[in-house]
């Protein structure tokens, strides 16, 4: 039967008529229409059938748990609420205080609670880092007599210190009590904001003190100095809060430090850092407004809580994947064990097979991390900036700029980004077996502690190299296309191998060794400080490793093995000329220092295992 248009309105009313919720006037109209329309009557019958089915289904369900028992459960969850979460208006009578006072008291409770929840290491690390930055800039200004270079250092370091701390404020990785905290009536937003306020005001307070000290020391204008770092500090901190909420602390620290380095480092000349665009071009008010916008974004993200909610289960969901992989690793190791016994070979052979298994396992565990790829792509974008336009190098007329020299400095520049990234990405790999509770399973394999540590080191360093080398190849190809000269490839690869491999092995060994006893975020914090320290002017007033055999920047390798000469006479101080043996000594010293660090970590772990 064809539905006529005049029925359309009635049809819309029919379900509500059948359910008995249609208003009276419409009900009367429907009843009148039904007398004269068979189609609608049938339609109503269908609705009534369906309605009866639905209400039958509503009754035919599993019974709810007994009311009393479930009320007990619920009321246990209600108890703590009136004290904190009910709005001031309601508790006004109970407490006899005004709403404003109550709100104040609530803020105070939350702030005080969060003070105790933040890790003490965070306060100590921030204070030490700021004190060091202030000390360095004071020394620098005394030695050079230029207040500008001293304030440059301060302006560079303060925002970075604050934003690194902020990255570790919140989230399942950093807050063992997060699960518990989420069950309290304090919202994630309140927790996030109060933590941010605490750490930021702590840092800003210390930074103000440092500025004040510097002002007394060298007589610079207080406000001029403060306005240089305040805006960037706020903006970077807000940005890192957002990034850490979405991607986690590692990516946040990596991305923010790279962003800030890129902003401050002159391309193609990795050692001169100076306040970049953000400081010179934009004023403090604008930066502060942007920072507030960033905070709003963070609050929005925290209310969505996608990653945070997922975070708790991520930790557990990582387990099964790891468990299967490592089970595969164990099976591999065990089968090596059996076949070895059959062939009657010694334990040395067995360990070498086991090492292969561990390396393979650690390689795959590292290469599937999203943070590895994100940080590498960011690093790559930065180092590619260098490659795209080699003509930007400024040079003296009396210095020789050869293509070979450019290739070497590109390789060294890329290596500098490599070891910064590798140091950050390898931190915490040794802690991981404990956090994922894999250590007991791994302990049952025939691989010894030393094999596992060494295999972890080799496997994860290799995985970290993969994306970096891909990016480097893109850069070299760009350079070759630019020059129409593909003969630079061998030199480019050799230079990268000579400069980057020892540096990454050196830094990676420390990242893996040190995080066996240092909380990884704290290590990252210290590591960035180390990176900055290493890039200080070696002829400056602050002693630095740069230019010595123990520096991963590899300047001795560049001058000794590749006969590198800088493009400006002023840069000669950065590149101590040495023989080929100086370069080799640099490589050997780095590898030896890395090996010592690993052996020390092995000793520590064995001692710990024995105590257990």
């Amino acid at each position, binding site marked *: 039967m064809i539905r006529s248009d005049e029925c359309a309105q009635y049809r819309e009313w029919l379900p509500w008529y059948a359910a008995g919720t249609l208003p009276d006037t419409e009900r009367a109209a429907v009843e009148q229409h039904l007398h004269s329309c068979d189609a609608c009557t049938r339609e109503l019958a*269908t609705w009534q059938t369906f309605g009866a089915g639905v209400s039958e289904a*509503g009754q035919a369900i599993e019974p709810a748990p007994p009311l009393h028992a479930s009320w007990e459960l*619920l009321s246990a969850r209600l108890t703590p609420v009136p004290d904190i979460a009910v709005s001031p208006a309601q508790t006004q009578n109970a407490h006899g205080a005004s709403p404003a006072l109550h709100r104040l008291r609530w803020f105070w409770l939350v702030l005080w609670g969060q003070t105790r929840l933040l890790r003490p290491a965070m306060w100590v690390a921030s204070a030490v880092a700021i004190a060091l930055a202030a000390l360095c800039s004071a020394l620098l200004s005394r030695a050079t007599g230029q207040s500008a270079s001293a304030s440059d250092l301060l302006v560079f370091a303060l925002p970075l210190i604050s934003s690194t701390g902020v990255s570790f404020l919140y989230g399942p990785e950093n807050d063992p009590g997060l699960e518990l905290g989420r069950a309290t009536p304090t919202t994630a937003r309140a927790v996030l904001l109060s933590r941010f306020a605490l750490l930021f005001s702590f840092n800003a307070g210390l930074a103000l003190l440092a500025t004040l000290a510097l002002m007394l020391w060298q007589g610079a204008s207080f406000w001029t100095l403060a306005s240089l770092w305040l805006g960037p500090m706020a903006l970077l901190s807000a940005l890192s809060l957002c990034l850490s909420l979405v991607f986690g602390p590692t990516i946040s620290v990596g991305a923010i430090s790279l962003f800030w380095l890129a902003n401050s480092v002159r391309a193609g000349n990795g050692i001169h850092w100076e306040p970049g665009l953000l400081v010179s071009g934009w004023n403090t008010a604008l930066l502060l407004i942007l920072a507030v916008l960033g905070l709003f974004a963070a609050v929005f993200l925290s209310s969505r809580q996608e990653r945070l909610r997922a975070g708790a289960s991520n930790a557990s969901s990582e387990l099964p994947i790891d468990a299967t992989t490592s089970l595969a690793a164990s099976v591999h190791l065990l089968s090596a064990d059996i076949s070895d016994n059959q062939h009657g070979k010694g334990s040395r052979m067995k360990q070498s097979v086991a090492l292969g298994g561990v390396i393979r396992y650690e390689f795959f565990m590292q290469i599937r991390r999203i943070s590895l790829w994100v940080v590498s792509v960011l690093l790559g974008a930065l180092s590619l900036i260098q490659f795209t336009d080699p003509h930007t190098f400024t040079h003296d007329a009396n210095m020789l700029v050869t293509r070979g020299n450019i290739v070497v400095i590109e390789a060294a520049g890329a290596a500098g980004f490599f070891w910064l990234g590798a140091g950050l990405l390898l931190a915490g790999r040794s802690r991981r077996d404990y956090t994922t509770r894999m250590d007991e399973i791994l302990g049952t394999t025939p691989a010894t502690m030393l094999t596992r540590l060494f295999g972890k080191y080799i496997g994860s360093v290799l995985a970290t190299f993969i994306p970096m080398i891909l990016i480097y190849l893109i850069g070299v190809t760009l350079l070759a296309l630019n020059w129409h000269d593909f003969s630079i490839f061998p030199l480019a690869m050799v230079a990268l191998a000579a400069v980057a491999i020892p540096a990454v092995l050196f830094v990676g060994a420390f990242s893996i060794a040190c995080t066996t006893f240092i909380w990884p975020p704290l290590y990252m914090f210290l590591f960035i400080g180390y990176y900055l320290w290493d890039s200080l002017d070696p002829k400056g007033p602050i002693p630095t490793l740069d230019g010595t055999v123990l520096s991963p920047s590899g300047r001795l390798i560049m001058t000794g093995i590749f006969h590198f000469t800088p493009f400006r006479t002023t840069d000669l101080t950065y590149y101590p000329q040495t023989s080929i043996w100086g370069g080799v000594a640099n490589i050997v010293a780095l590898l030896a220092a890395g090996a010592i660090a690993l052996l020390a970590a092995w000793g520590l772990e064995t001692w710990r295992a024995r105590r257990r």
Partner: protein
Amino acid sequence: MPPDERALLAQIATGDQHAMKCLYALYRQRLWSYLYHQLAGDAGWTEEVTQDVFLAVWRSADTYRGEAQVGTWLFRIAHNLAANARRTRRRHPLGQPFQTADDGDEPAEPVVTYDSHEEAVLDRLMLQQALDHLSPRHREVLDLAFYQGFGSAEIALILGVPEGTVKSRISYARKALSACLQQLNAREGVVEEEVQ
């Protein structure tokens, strides 16, 4: 005489647990049955979300401004929490699979002609089966209208959509139900043929 629900909420807002218990006793069964169908018939999950609903009521009783009936307000909270719970579990499945396509309002099913099968659709068991196959969105609107007894305006408040959307959604739900029944009928027919 039933206690005044608005007065109950006002008392809850001051932290009165006894008032909370009254409200709990009044509404728990209705919410349980609504959430049970919304959460794939998982009793444990239903109890969990039911408790969350009342916890949310406890926390935000002071934000209730009396614009809607208390029941409507409660169901609106339940609707939101159930949607959240489904979303979370779909992303992080914890055990039993939960597969419900949360289709939109568009009739994805072929539009069926009305008279062909409706007279034959009186098998109640099959109707129950078909209801279980509906998406939560379609199931919800039927539940609210026919079991919980809400009118279209109230359902619009609960779901947070315009009233017109509720009206079209209930008609899509009916089409989906008819299509489901048709499929079940067809399957049954095939089985019978095979048996013969």
